[in-house]
């Protein structure tokens, strides 16, 4: 039992607990806080895998920017308690068993695939994912997907602007 191993379990449990709280909380702000907890726990797990850049970006983008906007909108609309509607019959009876089956499938896949083996072997040395190495990969072999994604985001921004604009 070494420290990274213990930390992994602590933050994995936190992530799962946050995800459960996110669904169960009735107050929208509590749900948002639970989601922030999930994001941060994921960032710590990235850090344990040696991907420091991804971990920092995870916090800056998701916990620092996206979730701030969520909280901002919830505050702006001053949303009250979430209203509980009747569950659909299908979800009521088939939901839990199907979720359990999905969990089993993922566990099975994890144990038998290469990714599962990689996880079991523990994190790579931190140098493997250094920021310099990552940017070399991103700006050489993966330049086209990277630029395509940027253009996609630009289009999304323009779309938001057009939608938000008042009609003359």
């Amino acid at each position: 039992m070494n420290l990274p191993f213990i930390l992994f379990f602590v933050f994995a449990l936190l992530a799962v607990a946050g995800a459960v709280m996110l669904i169960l909380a009735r107050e929208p702000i509590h749900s948002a806080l639970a989601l922030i907890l999930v994001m941060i726990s994921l960032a710590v797990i990235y850090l344990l895998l040696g991907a420091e850049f991804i971990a920092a970006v995870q916090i800056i983008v998701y916990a620092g920017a996206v979730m701030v906007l969520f909280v901002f909108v919830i505050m702006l609309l001053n949303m009250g308690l979430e209203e509980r509607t009747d569950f659909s019959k299908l979800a009521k009876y088939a939901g839990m068993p199907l979720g359990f089956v999905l969990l089993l499938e993922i566990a099975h896949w994890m144990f038998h695939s290469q990714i599962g083996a990689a996880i079991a072997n523990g994190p790579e040395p931190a140098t493997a994912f250094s920021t310099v190495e990552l940017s070399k990969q991103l700006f050489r072999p993966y330049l086209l997907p990277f630029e395509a994604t940027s253009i996609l985001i630009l289009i999304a921004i323009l779309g938001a602007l057009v939608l938000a604009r008042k009609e003359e």
Partner: protein
Amino acid sequence: MEFISQHPVLVVSIVKIAVLLFVVMTALAYLTWLERKVIAHIQARWGPYYVGAHGLLQPLADGLKFLFKEDVTPPVSDRLVYTLAPFLALSLALTAIALIPFGPPSVTVLGQPVLVVANINIGFLFLFAITSMGVYGVALAGWSSNSKYPLMGGLRSSAQMISYEVSLTISVVGVLLLAGTLNFNDLIAGQSGYYLHFIPRWHIFPQIIGFLCYLTAAIAETNRIPFDLPEAETELVAGFHTEYSSFKFAMFFMAEYANMITVSCLATILFLGGWLSPFPDSWKWQLFLPGVGLVALGIYCLVDTVTTMRGIARLQFAVVTLLCLGGGLLVLAPAAASLHGAAPWIATVNAGIQGVFWFTTKILAILFFYIWMRGTLPRFRYDQLMSFGWKLLLPVSLANLVVTSAVVLYFMMKGPG
């Protein structure tokens, strides 16, 4: 002893954290004293004067007062979030300071650098990650109080911090392009050397526009005058912390000052060469600067003690005088020893003193600038704030980024040299 030699990282880290926490907490307390004094003198008043000589014990009295006040929680508030918000604000603000290197990494005890708690490769990104979370403290405090003015304050603050964080981040990318690293120690080490043998190679000179953008955005990020809309007294009572009392209010207060220190540290590291001295190494007399400065302060205090202080204040100020003179002599000793062929450890001590001295001096200069702004400028109107952030600050910092990239690219194409 065996335990210490077996776990140097653990032992040194814990001692560093404890010392840093103590120093930062004291610095926060006395920053409030400094601010009140400076503002008072700008407005031709005396400021705190009666608790201790020159009001020097005022922060202590304030702290005690906050501890013993009744802690009121509004019955309609969201208890969990209401309690969480001040803790979130203060702990995030203090975490950020752990990343700041206060002196060169060559100063070591048991092989561990002592003047920084955590030197990590992505220090810069990590600091931004922490500060980008800082908005939660304010936003959640405003929301959970369940009251009009705090909600308005929290909303304003979120909008303001989101808007100015964009400019803040973009204004420092120019520096990162020049430096080519995200590690604070490498960033500072890259600024050593001189243009024309006397102008230090600090990033402030090529990146003066970036520096001005950073400074403006940083003031807005820390909710200070002229951008202190979230707690505009005339409009919102006290903004997001209207409903907070006792020590929870004090925690917001401390978080604000800790954030001020963090952004000043970051400005020093990125633009002003961190712990580097502005003078060339060959100028040996600069080793004496910290000691001479402290002794001069001590002599001033001595004169003041003898000529103006009366009664208990004279006794208190005599203690301050002794501290300054003693500290000054203590700092002068290794500098004097280095004149007679220094042992390696004396050189290390001198390097540490010099690093901390220059770093502190630069931070104090920026903090003084902050306080000066507060004493001078009126508050912006909210629409002015927004249009200033989006229509002036952002385009200027973007233009700075584009020009810097072009210049860096040009020199890269030309090849090294």
